[in-house]
């Protein structure tokens, strides 16, 4: 078994030394190198690839942005982190396209350790390290969407004002429109119509807005290869929205319902990655689907050793999305493979997805994930056997907009 390799870059030797001591207990698990300049980092990368690079931004000669941009081009499989004491937002924003995660100095040691741990050992159930390596090796993962990143960064500040959040959201009118629409939808049961974006954000809360922005940006941030029909992505998005809308109705608790909603929006991001970044792989899967109509995750696992849930979860993990959501996305195709108590988020995604496929087969692009089926014995065991009939009814009228 090879250990994950990490490269830390900072022009301040004391910072490198501090990181080295702080991470000392990880010495046996991770291979860590510490270098003082971008040039030295590139020399090391040329010698042997790294899984993760953690770089400062303000450095003499080669700054962090130049370094990460070069790494993105030459070593697209290396996960790129920024660890910077820079306080100028404008400057930091420029690096957004080149990094997967941003950490600001001073960064709590536990936060940094956890971020690294989660990148190396995603909390998703990809037990097979070879599979994990394959995923990391086949695709250069897109960097975190910009608006989402700005909101996450703002939301970390306990003193952040709604004005500041509103200002960020207002940069994107499409996002504003969706938020207004969401707040006025049945789910939130607002009595008067809310048309003011700031009021809408207050009503929904920063967290939900943040996640909503993520789901909106997701679909626009992936570049559609020419030979992929736009209808395919539109169908995938529609499917995700329906699954999200159905899954949230399965939890009476407001917080869990929101979590289910977000997980629903994200659950098939692995398919999005396949379609846009691995078009040949997707074409193979699609051909077999058309021929056999077997469940898509069976085909994927046979062919590649992992399914699109795990693939998507891997990206969400790299982006620092909360572990619960990542975990549910990873297992959503067959939650019964990993026995657990009660009806969990992954179960909700599973049921919602199957019911939505039953209710709305194909679509304009003949998008399919194979013959839909529900394991009633399993659902009985999770204590929701009686609810399925009700959910099936709900699926018939599930809203197709957020």
């Amino acid at each position, binding site marked *: 078994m090879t250990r994950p390799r990490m490269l830390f870059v900072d022009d*301040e030797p*004391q*910072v490198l*030394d*501090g*990181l080295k*001591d*702080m991470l*000392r*207990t990880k010495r046996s698990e991770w291979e860590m190198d510490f270098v003082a300049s971008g040039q030295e980092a590139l020399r090391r990368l040329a010698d042997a690839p790294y899984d993760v690079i953690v770089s400062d931004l*303000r*450095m*003499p*000669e080669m700054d962090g942005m130049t370094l990460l941009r070069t790494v993105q081009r030459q070593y697209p499989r290396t996960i790129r982190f920024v*660890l910077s*004491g*820079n*306080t*100028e937002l404008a400057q930091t924003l420029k690096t957004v396209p080149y990094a997967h995660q941003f950490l*600001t*100095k*001073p*960064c*709590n*040691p*536990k936060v940094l350790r956890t971020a690294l741990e989660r990148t190396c050992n995603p909390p998703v159930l990809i037990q097979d390290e070879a599979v994990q390596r394959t995923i990391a090796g086949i695709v250069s993962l897109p960097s975190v969407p910009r608006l989402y990143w700005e909101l996450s960064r703002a939301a970390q500040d306990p003193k952040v004002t709604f004005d500041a959040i509103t200002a960020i959201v207002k940069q994107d009118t499409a996002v504003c429109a969706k938020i207004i629409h969401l707040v006025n939808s049945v789910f939130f049961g607002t009595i008067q119509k809310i048309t003011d974006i700031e009021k809408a954000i207050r009503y929904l809360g920063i967290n939900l807005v943040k996640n909503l922005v993520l789901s909106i940006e997701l679909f626009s941030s992936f570049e559609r290869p020419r030979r992929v029909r736009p209808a395919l992505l539109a169908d995938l998005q529609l499917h995700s929205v329906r699954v999200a809308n159905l899954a949230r109705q399965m939890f009476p608790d407001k917080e869990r319902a929101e979590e289910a909603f977000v997980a629903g929006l994200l659950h098939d991001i692995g398919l999005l990655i396949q379609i846009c970044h691995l078009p040949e792989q997707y074409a193979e899967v699609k051909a077999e689907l058309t021929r056999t109509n077997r469940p898509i995750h069976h085909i994927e696992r046979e062919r590649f050793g992992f399914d699109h849930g795990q693939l998507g979860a891997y990206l969400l993990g790299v982006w620092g999305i909360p572990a619960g959501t990542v975990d549910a996305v990873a297992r959503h195709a067959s939650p019964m493979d990993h026995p657990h108590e009660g009806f969990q988020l992954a179960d909700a995604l599973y049921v919602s997805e199957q019911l939505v496929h039953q209710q709305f087969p194909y679509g304009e692009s003949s998008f399919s994930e194979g013959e839909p089926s529900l394991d009633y014995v399993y659902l009985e065991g999770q204590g929701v056997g009686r609810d399925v009939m009700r959910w099936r009814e709900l699926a018939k009228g599930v809203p197709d907009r957020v």
Partner: protein
Amino acid sequence: MPQPSVNGGPDHPALQELGLSHAQRLESVGRLAAGIAHEINTPIQFVGDSLYFLDDAFRDLCTLLKAYQTFRDEVATGAGAAAIARILEAEETSDLAYLLERIPVAVARAIDGVDRVSTIVTAMRDFAYPDALEPQPADLNGALKSTITVARGEFKHVATVETDFGVLPTVRCRIGDLNQVFLNLLINAAHAIEDTLRAGTVSRPGVITVRTRHEGGLVMIAVADTGAGIPEAIRERIFDPFFTSKEAGRGTGQGLAIARTLIEEGHGGRIWFETELGTGTTFYVELPVEGRAP
């Protein structure tokens, strides 16, 4: 184009002059804030990491210490090879060799970080200290040191600063105004060097040399850079208000004009420069030790 008028305005000249420089001083503190925050965030990062490590290390050492106490009791009752093997294993588990080597380093690093932060904070306080209306005796070497510290974030990636301070008497002056002048000279020097780096004519960081001397009733401060020198065509104009050779956002064009007003009219001193293309520029400030003649 508005001209900064120092004399002849409706207000008392001295007050207006004070207001003008104070406003610019505030502006430059604002501009420096990002660099200062970066300079503080960096040591806080490694102080935090060091303390995390020390906390962790202490816990491991405590476990080891307990193992030693057990070992001591075992020795008292005639310990054998097994007890020795156990204690060696405990040393291994606690990472003793690493801890013994690294704990002193981590402590030194944490102290260094705290020192750096307090140096910056002290320098900021000195730099932004509001002047009294009347000139006061001040330590110019100390003031230069503070100004270099607060401006460090602005120049450290393009140049190192070398100081060559002579023994100076206290000088009767408005130290806040002089700090402003020193800051402007330092930032100009850094920009001159940065330009040569950007143009690719040199690839190594340059040097800014700050010298002070005392002779007779005068003190002299010189700020020299290893930039490209000032082109002949603009040498005449560099003290003109709003004249700038820098792109928008990098300079208001008032730095040297204000410096000249503060030095000549505010302190009865002189400011001039010597420059050589391809070698660099040196700005000189000369001040009377006793302050401006009444």
